[in-house]
């Protein structure tokens, strides 16, 4: 037994928690060698059977032709991907990217400012503020979107506030515009950005900012050269999240855009539920996944760079 223990110890991960006794590690090695696989099997089978295989299937579908009557004709083709770059659909992609990009930018600016303000509060107050900032995120997405219909419709609160300030003209049409869609997206995903930006901000060593000030750095320089680079991973995580979920969204454009303009999500929806062109819908879904993976790679790169910087800063200190 001891022999296996030491072998296990040697093989154990560097990150093994120090509080675990030697004894505890032995135990894990000896008795749990075969058990983890057994424990994980049902869940992994579920994930593979109902996520990996279906996603692989959709990816495969993208390479087949659409059948004459809407089914799938199993002949290999790259047409579906070519169609994605057709001016008509490329236009929808560009519009989706523009709307998602604008929403991301606004959400990151507001979210970062809010996270910064929370992180600057008293320590005891921070968890409470954070909890209430994230709370709306856990209510139903449709309801949060519906709330904006109630606000923005012609007789909604916004119009009434304008009237109260003496506005007498026609009620402004705010609903069913691109602006309404962007507002809805920002509103829905802002809590996540706050959460993502708060994590690195709360871990920030205040001495770094002090050191910068002592060395004559202005507030702007300190922010730009010290605080911003160190908190970039949080910003990147939040931004990727908002962008990916916005660009694939079909609920917000349908409800707040009034179905007047499509985004990629609506396009995917149509291919599967109305146009019945599954291979093209599958190609669109594949492109969505590709965009997501690309952005996650960028985010991973930002996180790596930031951790290198932190390490450097620590060494220099």
């Amino acid at each position, binding site marked *: 037994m001891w022999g296996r223990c030491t072998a296990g110890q040697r093989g154990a991960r560097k990150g093994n928690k120090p509080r675990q006794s030697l004894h505890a590690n032995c135990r894990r090695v000896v008795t749990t060698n075969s058990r983890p696989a057994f424990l994980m099997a049902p869940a992994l089978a579920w994930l593979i059977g109902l996520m*990996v295989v279906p996603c692989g299937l959709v990816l495969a579908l993208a390479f087949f032709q659409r059948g004459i009557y809407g089914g799938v004709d199993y002949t290999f083709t790259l047409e579906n991907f070519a169609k994605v770059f057709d001016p008509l659909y490329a236009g929808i992609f560009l519009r989706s990217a523009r709307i998602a990009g604008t929403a991301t930018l606004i959400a990151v600016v507001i979210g970062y400012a809010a996270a910064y303000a929370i992180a600057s509060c008293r320590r005891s107050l921070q968890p409470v503020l954070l909890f209430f900032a994230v709370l709306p995120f856990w209510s139903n997405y*449709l309801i949060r979107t519906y709330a904006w219909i109630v606000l923005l419709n012609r007789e909604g609160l916004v119009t009434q506030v304008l009237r109260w300030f003496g506005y007498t003209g026609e009620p402004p049409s705010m609903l069913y515009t691109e602006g309404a869609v962007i507002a809805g997206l920002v509103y829905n995903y802002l809590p996540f950005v706050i959460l993502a930006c708060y994590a690195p901000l709360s871990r920030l060593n205040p001495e770094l900012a002090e050191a910068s000030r002592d060395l004559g750095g202005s507030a702007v320089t300190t922010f730009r050269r010290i605080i911003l680079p160190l908190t970039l991973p949080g910003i990147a995580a939040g931004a990727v999240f908002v962008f990916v979920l916005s660009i694939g969204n079909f609920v917000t454009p349908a409800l707040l855009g009034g179905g007047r303009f499509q985004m990629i999500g609506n396009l995917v929806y149509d291919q599967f539920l109305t146009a019945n062109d599954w291979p093209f819908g599958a190609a669109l879904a594949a492109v969505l996944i590709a965009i997501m993976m690309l952005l996650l790679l960028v985010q991973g790169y930002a996180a790596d760079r930031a951790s290198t910087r932190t390490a450097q800063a620590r060494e220099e200190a």
Partner: protein
Amino acid sequence: MAERSATARRSGTTVLVLVFAFLYIPIAVLVALSFNEGGLPTVWSGFSTKWYVSLASNADILHAALNTLIVAVASTAIATVLGTLLAIGVETRRRRGTVLEALVFAPMIIPDIVLAVALLSFFSMLNVTMGLHTIVMAHVVFNLAFVCAVVRARLKSFDWSITEASADLGASGFTTFRRVTLPVILPAVVAGALLAFTLSVDEFIIAFFTAGAGRSSTTLPMQIYSMIRFGITPEINALATIVMAVSVIALAISQRLNKGMVGQ
């Protein structure tokens, strides 16, 4: 952060007031108008709870609510068992696998629409008749990932030597799990289950695609979606208020349990 000037503090407070106003005014207006006497959903004309009463006699909504409850309870039950076992398995594994981590993480970040169309193609290709059971199967996918994440966070600070003590005293693997491991991680398991329940109750897109034809397996979010598309009514406001209250209460309990975890 370090002590700051009065100006900085004031601007911080201003930012927070504005952001919280932005986050809560839409919800507050929605809830307030659910108690509106008049039929117009946006103009106040007096306090009334009649829209809640009319909800209770709306057969479509009650049916959808029952479906939602069935889906949420079933998918939460399955996901809690599978997710907890998965978490213990992953945490007791000696080697970390990148593929395994990605597989466990993927359901939390994959866009809903992608999983939805993938499952729709999958089920129809296998000629599976879709209904509540397929929604449950789909919901378990992301629910088990969330349960697993919550339980894993708790296991990170778990002292595995106590399971060894139990085994040394002659307990079987199952007895050790039931009498030692489970009581310690139980708050996290319950917190994970509540989170899964909330997610399932609120989930719309995947349910919409895997519900199959016909109205028999309509869930509450699907019902809300079609009502919203039809127009604004005070009834939606009342329904929205109830759904939000349920989510918030479940989340608040989950959060409390999680906090208790840190203290242990």
